[in-house]
């Protein structure tokens, strides 16, 4: 028996399917959203339930600068992807580097904030419920930023060795979906931890 149930005829319209990269990334983002939802629910559920100090109002300060850096990196990665789609590899490299720098600033300031909380304020994971939920939620997000930065750095190395070509535009775009997702999560984490929870 022939393995084709029908032979293709030229009269039929072109067969177009969604990009598997985009569908795969959106599915992964769905799964990640569920993970973050559980952590956010736990954070909100435990607001004000710590039996000992310090409380969020005592120790947390608004991380304005790092928030601005992370959110604007969404714009720069978008510009990078657009440049690659337009075959401007130089401009891609520039915007990609700026994205990496902004993400690194965010991560470094999170590290400084944690250092301050641990050494100056004595807040650790085991201090109280606030410490447990705060480090878990912010840490989970910082972990995602770190993973994103590693991938960005890898692509940056490829760019420096002139291995990135315009045909990689879709891959860069699929990755940028992840980066945008990490930014959106930060908006939620910022709102929950630094505004509602404080």
């Amino acid at each position: 028996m022939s393995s084709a149930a029908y032979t293709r005829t030229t009269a039929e319209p072109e067969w177009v399917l969604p990009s598997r990269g985009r569908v795969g990334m959106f599915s992964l983002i769905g799964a990640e959203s569920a993970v973050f939802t559980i952590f956010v629910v736990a954070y909100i559920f435990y607001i004000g339930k710590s039996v000992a100090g310090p409380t969020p109002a005592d120790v947390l300060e608004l991380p304005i600068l790092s928030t601005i850096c992370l959110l604007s990196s969404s714009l720069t990665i978008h510009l990078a992807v657009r440049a690659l789609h337009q075959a401007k590899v130089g401009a891609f490299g520039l915007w990609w580097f700026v994205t990496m720098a902004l993400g690194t600033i965010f991560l470094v300031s999170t590290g400084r904030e944690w250092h301050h909380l641990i050494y100056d304020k004595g807040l650790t994971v085991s201090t109280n419920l606030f410490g447990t939920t705060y480090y878990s939620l912010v840490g989970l997000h910082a972990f995602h930023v770190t993973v994103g930065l590693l991938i960005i750095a890898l692509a940056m190395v490829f760019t420096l060795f002139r291995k990135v070509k315009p045909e990689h535009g879709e891959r860069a775009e699929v990755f940028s979906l992840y980066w945008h997702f990490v930014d959106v999560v930060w908006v939620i984490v910022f709102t929950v931890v630094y505004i509602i929870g404080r």
Partner: protein
Amino acid sequence: MSSESIALGTVIESARPIGERLHDWVVTVDHKKLGILYILYALFFLVVAGIEAIIMRIQLIVPHNHFVSPQTFNRMMTMHGTTMIFFMVMPILFGFGTYLIPLMIGARDMAFPRLNAFSFWMTAFGGLLLYFSFIGGNGLYGAGTAPDVGWWAYAPLTSRAFSVGHSTDFWTLALLVSGIGSIGAGVNFIATILCMRCPGMTLGKMPLLAWLNLVVGGMVIFCISPLTAAQIMLCIDRYLGGHFFDTQAGGSAVLWMHFFWIFGHPEVYILVVPAFAFVSEIVPVFSRKPIFGYPIMVAATIAIGFISFSVWAHHMFTVGMSAYGNSFFVFTTVAIAVPTGIKIFNWLGTMWGGKILLRVPMLFCIGFLFQFLIAGLTGIMLGTAPFNWQLSGSYFVVAHFHYVIVGGIVFALFGAFYYWYPKMSGRMCNETLGKWHFWLFLIGFHLTFDFMHIPGILGMPRRIYTYEPGRGWELWNLIVTIGAFFQAAAILVFVVNLLWSLRKGEPAGNDPWDAWTLEWSTSSPPPDYDFATTPVVRSRRPLWDLKHPEDPDWKYE
């Protein structure tokens, strides 16, 4: 593909050294090999967890038995549940999905073949980690080896104070690792089904198995992730001294229950929807009719997928929620019976007036239909809060969910084995041994799980390692244990059949069942590339169109 080239392929295959062929299986990214790896891995754990069940049943055969210690009984109970859910049923369903989906949608592989391999090996590693606890779990002298906290591991039993040693760590890490594998499989299912269909196969023309696995993929990514999150929290509690589930520091044990069952109930549907998929493929072929009510079947499945995320707290009626909470979860639990009932009627409608062939796959599917119906009815009983308050935590619950998982899912799985075994191996399963398997398993199943309801109603709690004589439980426990041995004998016949048929079974040919979906258009077993030329389809039954050019389906769809 012609038969000579297949024969040639087998000769070349068997001429290669065994080490090289095994190496192929380890490094493979081929969906057919990974599917078979998933299935073999799961069959191994079916036997292991079955032995654990038999150990429990021997312990409970008479009152005051001393076959195993209470500690061992707790370990067997935890390992049996955890293994059967996470390392038997889930991998076996992923295995069938991985094997069949690309073949049924006319693709050459999954969307992400390497992710597919990654998912399998993560699952495999998770199972190894769980069972390594028997050797490595003894972190503290006398602290015990394998996990013994039950398969839902309620807090605060899992805290450092009550679970000393490493046994619970092995449990949580095993589920964390295999959960990541499952999420990868879910992502891959969705991307494959949406992006790899052959020309002409619109969503409305996909085989139901592909549709149902698309829903499963969606449920996996949204329901396994909460479990993964909860396991991360448990790790933080156990390793870093966190307080998520530590009631001494203001944490909540009930929060763990919610997180666990937000995973736990959709999980039931992740397990049962692929079983629905098998039945939806097998029943039409052996009734010689197209499936009745295709669009309604799809709609009902999607409805089940959505509603299943809003029923979780019916596992928690006895925790003491508000009346509004109870009412909401009673309502959703009863509501989910509606789309499920629609599916049962559609399968019956497919059989109605059909020319029914009682071959082994069909026998298992008919068993599935009746048993799943009864399982659904006891589900509605337990989903009603006042009734639940009486019977929660009793053997009635154990009987109910085994009716779903064994009477429903495992029966459909065996049907799938007999149906697709010729495609996977190139040889038919032995029909006589198959019928022995069916009848032994049917008798064993009903002896065990019909009679298990009764001690539950009489008040026998689940998870006890022994009981007092004179409570009216003795006869029922004796019958239940006898049934377990019938089931074990049936599994033995099944394994013998699989091995025997691999060498001695009749050659199957491409299409032994005169079926209608694309996997039967290629050789058995399919070549590495699945299809020599990409198929093009015009209806839901492309092979019917090919066999009956005078009366093709696409004229009517």
